[in-house]
């Protein structure tokens, strides 16, 4: 099943109108990841690796062999964002299993190397150094804070290691070694804000965020889309990370007369705000929410009495209903247990980033950074997330989903916007 998927992916990679892969490698890699007739043994493993994958196209890809392609995963497994770590660690297993089952990268097996940034940029820089220097990775996939990205990027750039940052972030990154495949605010908001106003009939918004770059950038764009849709921002407030008391803020919201609230709050702050808001009479039932980060653990703690009716806009939910995703999610819980921390947008984007890398490296016939980067531009894939493609700005055009929290606490996809283009520019 995954082999098929990868085969499709590779096929898409070189399909028609987007002549992204200009190199001759494009033709060679057409059927990648394709199998070799017989497992290459030690002695006669002489044939150059670029040729091997393209030779035959059987139903079953051959077992990859040779020096592994090393995929580094820089993620937050401790510290405040550590809560998102486990799904990513789980998905690293799938990355190895699935890419290897599909024949590996240019016939070579893949291995994943995990490094924890402890939600701390200084540690993140060391972790990046370890991945590059000690583990000798060919690519780094990242899901962590922007602060860690900024601290770690120079190391990747100096070492010429490809760095795919897959976390949702504020946008604006542009580096010769980087691709950014997470949701950016323009994707999460441009289609969803007008939809939300239509859905609810509300037009005045209160924007409440933690005080750092991502909420600020989100609100800057939200304001544009709200005004373009004929709405109005009646309040914009920022609270420090780790805020525990929202009583004064709640009062400002109550006094603002807002029809809608856009909370860009993370983790414990989100839980504190929403649980306190209900008692101040400004819960979801009084003022509907459009959230862009509330994820399952946070929503679960708030409980359905608080969350029922909230809408969340993200690039992935495990509830996304397509056969590939249903099978993928079923397999996830089968492998890691029914009570495993659920697969979610961060782990999903890491998985997609790995598939994108594998497809591009297969298309390029090499793991050389410049060649893979060239192959990545314009690359399209179909994954459990949906149809995704790398844009000219080195970001990802991807589906955006809106989930509505049901009265039993479950999430239901109520709207999806396919192939939402990021409003980004980048030409490194």
């Amino acid at each position, binding site marked *: 099943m995954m082999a098929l998927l990868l085969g499709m992916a590779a096929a898409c990679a070189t399909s028609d109108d987007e002549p992204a892969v200009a190199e001759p490698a494009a033709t060679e890699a057409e059927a990648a990841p394709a199998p070799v007739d017989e497992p290459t043994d030690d002695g006669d493993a002489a044939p150059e690796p670029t040729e091997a994958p393209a030779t035959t196209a059987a139903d079953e890809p051959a077992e990859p062999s040779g020096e592994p392609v090393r995929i580094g995963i820089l993620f937050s497994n401790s510290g405040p964002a550590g809560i998102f770590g486990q799904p990513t660690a789980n998905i690293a297993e799938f990355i190895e299993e699935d890419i290897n089952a599909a024949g590996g990268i240019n016939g070579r097996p893949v291995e994943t190397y995990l490094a924890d940034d402890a939600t701390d940029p200084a540690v993140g820089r060391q972790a990046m150094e370890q991945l590059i220097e000690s583990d000798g990775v060919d690519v780094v996939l990242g899901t962590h804070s922007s602060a860690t990205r900024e601290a770690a990027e120079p190391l990747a750039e100096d070492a010429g290691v490809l760095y795919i940052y897959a976390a949702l972030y504020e946008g604006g990154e542009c580096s010769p070694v980087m691709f950014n495949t997470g949701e950016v605010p323009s994707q999460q908001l441009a289609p969803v804000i007008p939809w939300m106003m239509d859905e609810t009939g509300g037009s005045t918004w209160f924007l409440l965020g933690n005080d750092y770059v991502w909420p600020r950038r989100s609100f800057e764009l939200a304001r544009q889309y709200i005004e373009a849709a004929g709405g109005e921002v009646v309040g914009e407030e920022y609270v*420090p990370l*780790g805020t525990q008391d929202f009583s004064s*803020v709640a009062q400002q919201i109550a006094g603002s007369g807002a029809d809608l609230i856009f909370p860009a709050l993370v983790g*414990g702050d989100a*839980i504190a705000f929403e649980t306190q808001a209900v*008692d101040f009479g400004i819960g979801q039932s009084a003022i509907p929410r459009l959230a862009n980060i509330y994820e399952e653990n946070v929503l679960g703690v708030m*409980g359905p009495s608080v969350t029922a009716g909230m809408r969340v806009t993200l690039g992935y939910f495990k509830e996304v209903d397509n056969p590939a995703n249903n099978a993928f999610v079923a397999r996830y819980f089968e492998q890691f247990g029914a009570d495993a921390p659920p697969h979610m947008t961060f782990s999903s984007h890491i998985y997609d980033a790995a598939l994108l890398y594998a497809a591009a490296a297969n298309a390029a016939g090499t793991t050389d950074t410049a060649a893979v980067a060239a192959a990545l531009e314009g690359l399209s894939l179909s994954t459990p997330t949906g149809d995704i493609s790398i844009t000219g700005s080195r970001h990802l055009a991807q589906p955006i989903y809106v989930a509505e929290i049901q009265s039993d606490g479950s999430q239901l996809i109520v709207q999806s916007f396919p192939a939402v283009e990021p409003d980004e520019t980048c030409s490194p």
Partner: protein
Amino acid sequence: MDALTLELLNGLSLFATLAIVALGLGIVFGLMGIINLAHGEFVMIGAYVAYVTHANGLSHWLSLPLAAVVLFVLGACIEVGLIRRIHRRPEVTILATFGLSICLRQAVELIFTKDFRGVPNPVPGATRALGVLFPTYRYVLIGIAVVVVVVTLLAFTRSRFGLTVRAIVADRDLADACGVRTGIANFCAFGIGAATAGIAGALVAPLGAIEPQAGLAYLPGAFLVVIVGGFNRLWGVIAGALVVAAVQTGVIHFYDAVWAQIASLALAVLMLQLRRVPVEAANP
């Protein structure tokens, strides 16, 4: 007018929260001269006691005494196992309690994982009083916090035990020379300090997220209260919490929460300039 009433009530609930969270820190610093960097973790563990109580289908109110007992025992064990051996060396206690805070966080993470936890509000909704609607649980919180703080402070200032402990604060050597068993007094003071932190944690649990890192968020506020209130005066916790709550609520009202945080830090710096940390006084 109503807005002002609400803001006063907000300030009052912030005051009550700050006071009960800082109480144990103030007791342990004031009485033992120990800067307990693991105090936030005591609060966090108190919140987990509330979570476990809830998860076992028991009343939230039961979690308050339970948290007090659990944290008293934990605090007493820590005093015997760690603090007692180093308490006359302030710089060592800072490092030791910092290490302890990491251990406690990791231990809680091992038991409960990193996931956020929560307990539902036992009295949801708002109550109309003084012409405004204000969350019922916050009235309860204010009441319980004030009672716990006042009773604890009275116990330390009015009882024979309190006299003993205050004697230790006033002059540890002289107390020693009078035959006061300063070891037992420290044991109790540390245990009681931890117990009040546990109550604080259980009390604020329904208002926010419970997670292993949660303690880190409580520590700065508690320190601010103790710094503002004065190091060696137990009742200073109340004065400190009043000042900090007034400043924060006021600044949030007129500016925003980010400026309120800046104002709090500025206040801490100012108070530290005015009051030298009496480390030598506390540890002759």
